[in-house]
C-alpha cells in the first residue's frame, strides 16, 4: 500500500479510495499506460548528474521509453542541478512539471536556496512532487519542515550505506561519496519492483568502461541500498517489456548525423551546450574525423571553409556567442559559394545570456547573419531523430547549392537524452545517400576552368583544390566567372543574381518532409499550432484530436506554400521559446500572413507538456498571448 505513510493522518477509508484512483491515474496514465516522471538533483560535481543516465538505462533495459533532461548552472562544483526522466510505454517527446516520485539527499534540493542578497537562486523541489507522489530523502533532511501532507516521504540513511560500502570495499569515505547517485537510483528502482539482479546487471553495464574497483564499489552500494529498502512498500509492479533501444543525447545525434554524411573534419571552440558533440567525435577516431580545436571561432570557421574548398566535408558546432563570431566567414561563404555546415545549439541570449539554459533566440540572426545579400539555408530539427537526419542532410544541401547551411538546435535538444530504437537509427543510416552536387573533376576539353560559370540555375561546377586539370580562383571580392576580382556593374548584377536565385531552386527541389511536418489534420482542427525546433516535442505530446500542428523545418528559404494551411486555419497560434516570436515575424515577412496568437517562453527553461496544454486551452478560450514560466 503505497500511500500508507503519507496519509497516516487521513482516514483509512479516504486512503483506500485515494490509492486505487491514484495508482491508476498517476502510474498508468489515461489508457492504463505506464507514464510517470522521476526526478533527482543535487550539487553539481557531486556525481548526481550520472543518476539521470543510470536511471534512464535501467528503464530502457526494462523495456520502456525514456525522455530525460538536465537543468544546471554555469558552474563546476556546488550549485544546484536537477534531472528529470519521464518513463513511458509510448513514444514521448517532452516532460511534465510534476514528478510522481523524486529522490534528494541535500537540503538545497528540497528547500531551495537564496544568495547573500536574499535573492532566490532556486525554490527547491518540494513543490514539484505530484499530490500523492513519493519523495525519497536522506535521513539528515528535516522531514518536519516539508510542508506537504499529501505526499509520501521515505527516508534513507545515505551516509550509513556509503560508509558500510566504503569499509567493505576498502575505499576512503570521501572517495565513496560520489556513489550517492547509486543510492538514489537503486532506491527508486526498488519502488518500481525492479529485481536486484536486473539492477546489478544494468549498473555494471553503465560503468562498463570504468576500472573494476569503481564497478565493485557501485555494486556494493547498490546491494546495500536494495537491502535497506526491504521494509518499504513497492509503488508498483513495472512489467518487463521487449523493446531494444539505445540511449542517446542530442549532441550525440548531431555527431552521428555528421558521421553518416561523411564529414571528415569537425572544428570547434569550447562552448556550452555544443562542446559535447565535438568531444564525442574526438572519442571515436575510428570514424576518421579529424577534430580540431583552434584558438577562436574566427579560426574555427576559417578552417572549415578551407577544408571545404579542398573538397572535404567539414563542419562546426557552436552556440550563439561563437556563432556570432563566425559571421564574416558566413558572408564570405555566401559570396564565394563555399559549402559550410554549422550546427548552432542555441542557448539563452543575448550576449553570454544563460549559458546552460535553452532558448530559440537565434532564428532571425541565423537568417540575416552576415553583411550583404546572399542565399543560405537554415534548418531546424525538432527531435533527436530529426537532428540525426537533418544534420546529415545539411551536407548534401551545402554541396548541392554551394552555400552555408545552418542547423538550429538548442540546449533543449542538445541535452535531452532519450531512448532511441535501433531500427530507427538504422533506417536513417540506410536511407541516407551522399549527394555532393556538382562536385566534378574539370574536363580540360571544356577550356579553362571557371569557378563561377554562369548557369541557368546559378550553380557552377565545383572542383577540389588540387584538380589535375585546373586551377581554381576564389575571391571574397566581387569576381568574374574565373573568380578574379571585377567591379564592373553588369558583372556585378549577374553575380548578385546568380547567388540570390538559389532559394527558388532549393524550394523547388526539397521534398515536403524536408520543409515542414504536419501533425493531425489542419482541415478538421479548431486550432493550428505553428512552431519550430525543440518546441515541437511538447506540442505533439500536448495536442488533442481537434488541434493540428505545423512544424517548420526549413526556416530559410521559407516554404511559402504553407500560407494555404495558415489561411485556411480557423485559428492560429505560434509556439516559440523566445520573446520576439521570431518565426511569426519571419512568416509574416515571407508570406504576409500574421499569426494571431502567441504562446512564448523565454525564462531559459524548455516548454513543459502540461503548461503548454493549459496555454493552448487559454488561447482557445480567447486569450491572445500566453507567457509560460515553468522552471
Amino acid at each position: 500500500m503505497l500511500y500508507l505513510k503519507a496519509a497516516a493522518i487521513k482516514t483509512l477509508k479516504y486512503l483506500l479510495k485515494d490509492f486505487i484512483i491514484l495508482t491508476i491515474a498517476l502510474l498508468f496514465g489515461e489508457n492504463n499506460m505506464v507514464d510517470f516522471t522521476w526526478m533527482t538533483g543535487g550539487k553539481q560535481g557531486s556525481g548526481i548528474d550520472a543518476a539521470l543516465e543510470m536511471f534512464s538505462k535501467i528503464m530502457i533495459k526494462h523495456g520502456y521509453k525514456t525522455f530525460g533532461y538536465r537543468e544546471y548552472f554555469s558552474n563546476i562544483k556546488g550549485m544546484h542541478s536537477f534531472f528529470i526522466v519521464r518513463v513511458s510505454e509510448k513514444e514521448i517527446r517532452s516532460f511534465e512539471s510534476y514528478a510522481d516520485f523524486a529522490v534528494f539527499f541535500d537540503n538545497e534540493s528540497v528547500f531551495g536556496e537564496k544568495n547573500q542578497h536574499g535573492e532566490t537562486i532556486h525554490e527547491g523541489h518540494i513543490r514539484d512532487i505530484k499530490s500523492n507522489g513519493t519523495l525519497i530523502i536522506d535521513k539528515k533532511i528535516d522531514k518536519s519542515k516539508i510542508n506537504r501532507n499529501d505526499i509520501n516521504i521515505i527516508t534513507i540513511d545515505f551516509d550509513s550505506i556509503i560508509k558500510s560500502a566504503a569499509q567493505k570495499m576498502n575505499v576512503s569515505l570521501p572517495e565513496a561519496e560520489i556513489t550517492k547517485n547509486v543510492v538514489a537510483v537503486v532506491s527508486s528502482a526498488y519502488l518500481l519492483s525492479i529485481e536486484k539482479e536486473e539492477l546489478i546487471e544494468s549498473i555494471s553495464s553503465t560503468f562498463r568502461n570504468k576500472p573494476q574497483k569503481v564497478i565493485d564499489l557501485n555494486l556494493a552500494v547498490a546491494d546495500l541500498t536494495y537491502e535497506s529498502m526491504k521494509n518499504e512498500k513497492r509503488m508498483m509492479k513495472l512489467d518487463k517489456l521487449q523493446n531494444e533501444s539505445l540511449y542517446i543525447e542530442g549532441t550525440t545525434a548531431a555527431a552521428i548525423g555528421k558521421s553518416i554524411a561523411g564529414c571528415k573534419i569537425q572544428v570547434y571552440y569550447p562552448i556550452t551546450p555544443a562542446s559535447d558533440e565535438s568531444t564525442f567525435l574526438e572519442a571515436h577516431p575510428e570514424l576518421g574525423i579529424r577534430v580540431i580545436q583552434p584558438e577562436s571561432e574566427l579560426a574555427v570557421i576559417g578552417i572549415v571553409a578551407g577544408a571545404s574548398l579542398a573538397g572535404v566535408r567539414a563542419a562546426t558546432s557552436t552556440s550563439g556567442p561563437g556563432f556570432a563570431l563566425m559571421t564574416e566567414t558566413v558572408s564570405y561563404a555566401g559570396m564565394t559559394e563555399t559549402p559550410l555546415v554549422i550546427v548552432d545549439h542555441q542557448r539563452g541570449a543575448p550576449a553570454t545570456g544563460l549559458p546552460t539554459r535553452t532558448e530559440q533566440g537565434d532564428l532571425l540572426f541565423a537568417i540575416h547573419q552576415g553583411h550583404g545579400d546572399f542565399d543560405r539555408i537554415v534548418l531546424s530539427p525538432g527531435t533527436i531523430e530529426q537532428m540525426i537526419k537533418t544534420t546529415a542532410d545539411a551536407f548534401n544541401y551545402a554541396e548541392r547549392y554551394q552555400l552555408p547551411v545552418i542547423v538550429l538546435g538548442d540546449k533543449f535538444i542538445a541535452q535531452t537524452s532519450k531512448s532511441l530504437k535501433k531500427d530507427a537509427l538504422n533506417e536513417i543510416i540506410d536511407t541516407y545517400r551522399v549527394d555532393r552536387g556538382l562536385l566534378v573533376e574539370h574536363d580540360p576539353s571544356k577550356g579553362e576552368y571557371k569557378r563561377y560559370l554562369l548557369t541557368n540555375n546559378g550553380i557552377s561546377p565545383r572542383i577540389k583544390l588540387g584538380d589535375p586539370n585546373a586551377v581554381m580562383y576564389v575571391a571574397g571580392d566581387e569576381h568574374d566567372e574565373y573568380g578574379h576580382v571585377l567591379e564592373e556593374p553588369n558583372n556585378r548584377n549577374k553575380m548578385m543574381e546568380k547567388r540570390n536565385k538559389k532559394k527558388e531552386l532549393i524550394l523547388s527541389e526539397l521534398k515536403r518532409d524536408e520543409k515542414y511536418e504536419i501533425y493531425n489534420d489542419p482541415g478538421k482542427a479548431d486550432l493550428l499550432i505553428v512552431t519550430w525546433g525543440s518546441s515541437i516535442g511538447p506540442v505533439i505530446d500536448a495536442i488533442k484530436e481537434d488541434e493540428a500542428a505545423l512544424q517548420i523545418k526549413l526556416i530559410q528559404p521559407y516554404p511559402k506554400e504553407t500560407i494555404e494551411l495558415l489561411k485556411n486555419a480557423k485559428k492560429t497560434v505560434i509556439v516559440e521559446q523566445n520573446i520576439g516570436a521570431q518565426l511569426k515575424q519571419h512568416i509574416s515577412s515571407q508570406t504576409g500572413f500574421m499569426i494571431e496568437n502567441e504562446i512564448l517562453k523565454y525564462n531559459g527553461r524548455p516548454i513543459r507538456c502540461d503548461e503548454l496544454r493549459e496555454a493552448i486551452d487559454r488561447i482557445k478560450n480567447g486569450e491572445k498571448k500566453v507567457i509560460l514560466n515553468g522552471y
Partner: protein
Amino acid sequence: MVISLKDLDSHELNDWCPGCGDAGILLAVKNAIINSGVDPHKTVIVSGIGCSSKLPHFVNVNGIHTLHGRPIPFAEGVKIANPELTVIIDSGDGDTYGIGVGHFISAARRNVDIKLFVHDNGVYALTKGQASPTLPEGTKVKGIALPNINSPIDPLILAIAAGYTFVARTQSYNVKEQTDLMVKAIRHKGIALIDIMQGCPSYNEEYTSSSWFSQHLIPLDSNYDPVVHNPLDEKEVMEKKLQAIKILLEEKSDKMHTGLFFQWENPDNFEKRLMDRGLESPIQQEICNKDGKPTVDLTKVVQTLEV
C-alpha cells in the same frame, strides 16, 4: 615537369603602384614555385585583404583570396584536408600581425605545414597608409596626421617564441634572396615565416625604398648557422632559438639583418600528430560508395549507446 615563368602567368594584370615591392615578391614567388619543383595544380596561394593579398590572382596556381586577417585558418583547413597540397600564404603585416595576430601565434602550436610570406611595409596601404603593427613608434608616414603612437611588434621574435620552425627576413627588391628563402621554406616540413620588408612607394617611401633597404639591411654573417642539425636534440633547438632571438633583440630598426634566422625540421608536425591518432588524410577517405551509400562504420558508436 619543367615549367617557365610564362606558365605561371595568369591572365590577370596586377594593379600595384609603379615601383611597388609586391611586384618583386610576385616574381620571387613564381621563381620559388619553379625552383622548388612543386606541381602548380597542387599548389595553393591563400591571401587575406590588402595590396599584398591580390597576389594569388596573378599566378597560375590555385588562389584563395580570403578575409582580412583570416588567411592562416583557411590555409590550415586546406592543408589538414589535403596534406598533398603545397600551401603558401601571401598576406600583409596588418593581416598577419594585426587583425590576425591570434592566428599567427596559435598556428605555431600546431606546426601545420604552411608557408607564410608576409608583405611587411609598415602601413595599411590600400586604405591609404595608416600605421601597421610593425611601424616604429614616433615614425611619421604620409598617411597619418601625427607620428605613430603605438610601438611596433617584432614578428620574428614572436614567431620563434610561438614555435615557428622556419623564420627568415628578406626584402622585396632582392628577388634572389627572396627566391632562395622561399624555396627553402617550401621544402621545409612545418610552419614557416618569411617576413618580407616590402617597398611601398606610395605611403612609406622613406623607410621602405630600395635605397633605404640597401643602407639599413645587412645579410646575416656567412658564418651564422640557423639550422638545427639534430632535430631531436632539445639543447641544440634551444641554442639556435636563443642565437636568433639575441640578434633580433640587439638590432635597431635602422640596422636589421636579412636571411634565415632559424630552421628546425621538428618532426612533430600536425599531420603526424593526426596520423598518430589513426586519422587518415581526409581527402583520401571515400565517404560513400557509387550509389551514395555512406561508408562510415558506426558499429563502435552504436555500442557506446547500448544500455
